[in-house]
């Protein structure tokens, strides 16, 4: 069941002198070809200070498109090669989400830290891997709702 995701993204900004900066389009989509036709689409309700796994290999093995939107400011951690040790040392990273602003990835490709974790020579020392797990955390306020769409 091969199919495509149509993605529209655009920004525009007009500075104090009236210069317009813009990119993308709201009418012409970018097409992302989906490999397997598998879909994970779920909205979680997460209370504050509760660490919640919102995506993992057990939910969908791989993804070609990822869309995460939270109604509150929050953080997500992306983990590449979860549980990996040298020479495929796992890696993790935190992205802060603004409320209502989606976070989008067009694939799950990343790199684990290889043997040494050398950050400065990542283009040779790190090894290709994929995002295996994503956790969600918000520290204050009422329960948040976060939607996760992964298509692979």
């Amino acid at each position, binding site marked *: 069941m091969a*199919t495509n*995701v*149509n*993605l*529209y*993204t*655009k*920004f*525009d*900004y*007009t*500075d*104090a002198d009236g210069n317009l*900066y813009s*990119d*993308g389009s*709201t009418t012409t989509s*970018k097409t*992302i070809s*989906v490999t397997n*036709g598998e*879909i994970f689409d779920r909205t979680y309700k997460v209370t504050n200070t509760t*660490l919640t796994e919102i995506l993992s290999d057990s939910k969908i093995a791989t993804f070609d*498109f990822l*869309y995460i*939107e939270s109604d509150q400011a929050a*953080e997500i*951690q*992306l983990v*590449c090669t979860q*549980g990996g*040790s040298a020479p495929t*040392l*796992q*890696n*993790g*990273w*935190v*992205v*802060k*989400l*603004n409320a209502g*602003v*989606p*976070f989008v*990835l*067009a*694939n799950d*490709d*990343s*790199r684990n830290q290889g043997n040494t*974790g050398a*950050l400065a020579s*990542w*283009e040779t020392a*790190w090894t290709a891997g994929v995002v295996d797990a994503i*956790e969600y*955390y918000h520290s204050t306020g009422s329960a948040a709702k976060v939607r996760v*769409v992964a*298509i692979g």
Partner: protein
Amino acid sequence: MANINLTTHFTLTLTDSDDSRVITGGSTTAADTIAVTHYYDQRFTVGATTLQELWSDSNALGNFDFLWIETDGDLVEVQLLCNENGVIGDSELENAFCVKLTAGIPFILSNDDSRNRGDMAGTVNASNYAAEVDTWETNWAADTIDRIECYNGHSGSVNIRIFAAT
């Protein structure tokens, strides 16, 4: 101070044997807004198998509240580096991650906030490393992205635009 208007929308139409349905998110008409004053806009041409720094906090723009990176090549990766040169002794060990770009599809962040790896329980070893990946919400410290590099794994040159604003 003016706003960046950002729109994001996706659709996926599924056709099964007996019906079809559309999965969708976001909007093409309702924009999210991010207030900014200063900006950095640069286009690079990056040669084959070449590493290129796209942005660092040593530029005129020391931080960002909006980031847009787009390339016309498929085999392009970016490395995001949080707290460059941070060390365990100061409880702010640097951290980094790699994202692979797809040609024509922008990578967008709505701020530069991330986390460094803290003090790694005082010692970098496999046990502490793994444990603190799992307990990031308490053991990693709030910090920001300091530098962004890209690597072009393509056999020819690619063009990359980075627009950052704060």
